């Protein structure tokens, strides 16, 4: 079994994760974790939909920010995808998508303040980078023959519209719709840094112990995402996109002086700002590296590796829940509900809830990341197994799982897992804002201490780390000849 490179790779990653556990802080520090968890679940099953008008506003704002941000991102991303071959564009896109929406929000908050533009750009910028990459991959997949057969003298635009777009229109649309769903999640968590979306109301409900109100918000959020096929219709899209900017709320006006100061003073490294010149810069950088960046990187990497393997384990355990090869329709429906909840809840919200209940440590983050990402991969793999036809006399039960199904789907499972590696790391960094000592924690503290120069250095380091993992993930996928389409 160990002669297979996929199995060997899996065990190497498993070993790294187990070693990481030895260094990770995974204690439950809350005095009464299970009682709190019980009260939370009681709140979810006794949701209070009418406690305040805040719930409706929260949902409306969440949808509005998602629509404006994703629409802007998809337009910019599409234009960028047309010139994606250019190495400068490629690098630029890799960089802007390596910085998480929440980091972008934290940056814009410093100079735009609580203006709607902050939330819109926080979604639109990283999404442009993602859209550019995926759109260009989809466009490259189209059949080149029709284009070669066109009469000479056909305009570039006509050729593009006739031979490229129709061929991949369905994929472009499916992917954009999927991204809109992600946009709803991104929009919801922007509330945690103070924008008027779901996260803001969720946090205040939690901090006051109003679990029924929090439960109502979560349930409405699931309903919103689960019913997307019903209310997001191609014909209604223009209405939504034109209407959404009017529902972003007013926020506070932009103080342009702050914008200028941010770029000309705040983010300039302090030794240069204070006139110490280059000689002062090195000790300053050294200090940032030793006291903040290195511990942050270490914790981010350790947590990412543990969460990656936990994600894989959850996915492998969860996919039989929705596979047609096991259980009856009742169990499958239950499995679907579980996986929909797991993958619709943003990992940030999951981590926030678990952190409130269990106290600060890496454990809530690991569980949140594993549940969310495991839910996504489990769903994709489960759906894939349902298309497999087994011989009529195939083994049943655990033997069917181990002999018939897992070997057949293991390669695509690994492909999805390595595809999500970079996403898990990006999330891991951001969970630091909740108080886990990953890079986000140091970014957030630097901002709290009004040291934007340090924050920028740390954000750039985070971006580079993400780009590095992305390259490594792609290298491993290529080495193991694993292929996926970017639909997860």
């Amino acid at each position, binding site marked *: 079994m160990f002669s297979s490179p996929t199995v060997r790779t899996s065990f190497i990653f498993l070993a790294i994760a187990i070693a990481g556990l030895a260094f990770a802080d995974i204690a439950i520090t809350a005095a009464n974790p299970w009682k709190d968890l019980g009260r939370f679940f009681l709140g979810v099953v006794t949701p209070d939909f009418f406690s305040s008008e805040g719930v409706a506003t929260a949902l409306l704002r969440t949808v509005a920010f998602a629509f404006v941000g994703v629409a802007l991102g998809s337009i910019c991303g599409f234009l960028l995808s047309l010139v994606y071959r250019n190495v400068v564009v490629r690098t630029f896109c890799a960089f802007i998508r390596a910085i998480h929406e929440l980091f972008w929000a934290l940056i814009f908050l410093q100079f735009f303040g609580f203006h709607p533009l902050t939330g819109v750009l926080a979604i639109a910028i990283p999404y442009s980078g993602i859209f550019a990459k995926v759109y260009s991959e989809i466009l490259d997949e189209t*059949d080149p*023959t*029709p284009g*070669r*057969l*066109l*009469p*000479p*003298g*056909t*305009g570039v*635009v*006509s*050729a593009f*519209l*006739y*031979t490229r777009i*129709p*061929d991949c*229109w*369905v994929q472009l649309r499916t992917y954009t719709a999927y991204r809109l769903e992600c946009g709803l999640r991104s929009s919801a968590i922007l509330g945690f840094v103070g924008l008027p979306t779901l996260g803001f109301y969720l946090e205040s409900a939690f901090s006051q112990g109003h679990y029924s109100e929090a439960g109502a918000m979560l349930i409405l959020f699931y309903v919103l995402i689960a019913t997307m096929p019903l209310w997001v219709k191609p014909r209604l899209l223009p209405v939504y996109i034109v209407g959404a900017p009017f529902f972003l709320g007013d926020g506070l006006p932009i103080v342009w002086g702050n914008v200028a100061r941010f770029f000309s003073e705040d983010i300039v490294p302090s030794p240069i700002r204070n006139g110490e010149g280059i000689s002062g810069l090195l000790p300053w950088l050294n200090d940032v590296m030793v006291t903040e960046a290195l511990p942050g990187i270490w914790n981010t990497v350790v947590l990412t590796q543990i969460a990656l393997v936990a994600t894989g384990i959850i996915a492998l355990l969860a996919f039989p829940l929705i596979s047609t090869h096991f259980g009856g329709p009742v169990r499958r429906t239950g499995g679907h509900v579980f996986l929909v909840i797991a993958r619709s809840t943003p990992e940030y919200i999951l981590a926030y809830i678990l952190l409130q209940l269990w106290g600060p440590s890496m454990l809530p983050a690991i569980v949140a990341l594993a549940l969310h990402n495991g839910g996504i991969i489990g769903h994709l793999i489960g759906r894939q197994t349902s298309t497999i036809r087994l011989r009529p006399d195939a083994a049943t039960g655990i033997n069917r799982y181990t002999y018939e199904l897992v070997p057949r789907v293991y390669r695509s499972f690994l492909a999805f897992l390595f595809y999500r590696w970079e996403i898990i790391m990006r999330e891991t960094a951001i969970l630091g804002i909740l108080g886990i000592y990953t890079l986000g924690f140091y970014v957030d503290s630097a901002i709290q201490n009004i040291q934007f120069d340090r924050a920028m250095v740390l954000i750039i380091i985070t971006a580079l780390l993400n780009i590095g993992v992305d390259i490594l993930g792609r290298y491993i996928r290529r080495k193991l000849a694993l292929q996926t389409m970017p639909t997860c």
Partner: protein
Amino acid sequence: MSGFDLTGLSASFGGERVIGPLSMNVEEGDRVGLVGRSGAGKSTLISLIHQQVGRDSSLVPQDLGLVSALPVFHNVFMGQLDAHSTWYNTLTLIRPFRRDASSVRGLLKELSMPEKIWVPTASLSGGQRQRVAIARAVFRQSPLLLADEPVSALDGPMAHLIMKLLRDRFNTSVIALHDVELALQYCTRIIGIQDGQIALDEPSKRLNPADITPLY
């Protein structure tokens, strides 16, 4: 000017020569039937000629090169994208003009599939798809046709109908055919390919099926 005179045609795959080097001279008005065993290099020769004479020829490749997501109308209309402005083409994509629709419908009528004009190409049968690719080539109105097995998926009467249409609409043509009878009936000149070389080049009047059999 629709004839061509090409020399030094050759192609290799993976270091192994599959065709040529060979020369080929086609006069205006020639209707060349390209025959030979499958794998002899007919398709390669057709695409080589297409590369050399440029895109002024109408090509019907074996894999047709249709945009499956678009309806039949747009796939045929694509043959004349160069004749209109970008705005005209973009509007046509959303809502075709009546004038173009009727000329495409007229052409489809000759191919006996006018009712399929608004059907997405993806939902057509193999033979219907082949006729759409032929309609696109005809709609382009270039004098030279290069076609690679254009009637391979069509039944007898339909194959004759199409071959007649191609004879009437194109002044000069090079058509790869595995059906020797069809080649003799509709082409004025037969070129036989064997092991990547021209093994036979005669006016079809002087040939009968038995003369071509050794090639297979």
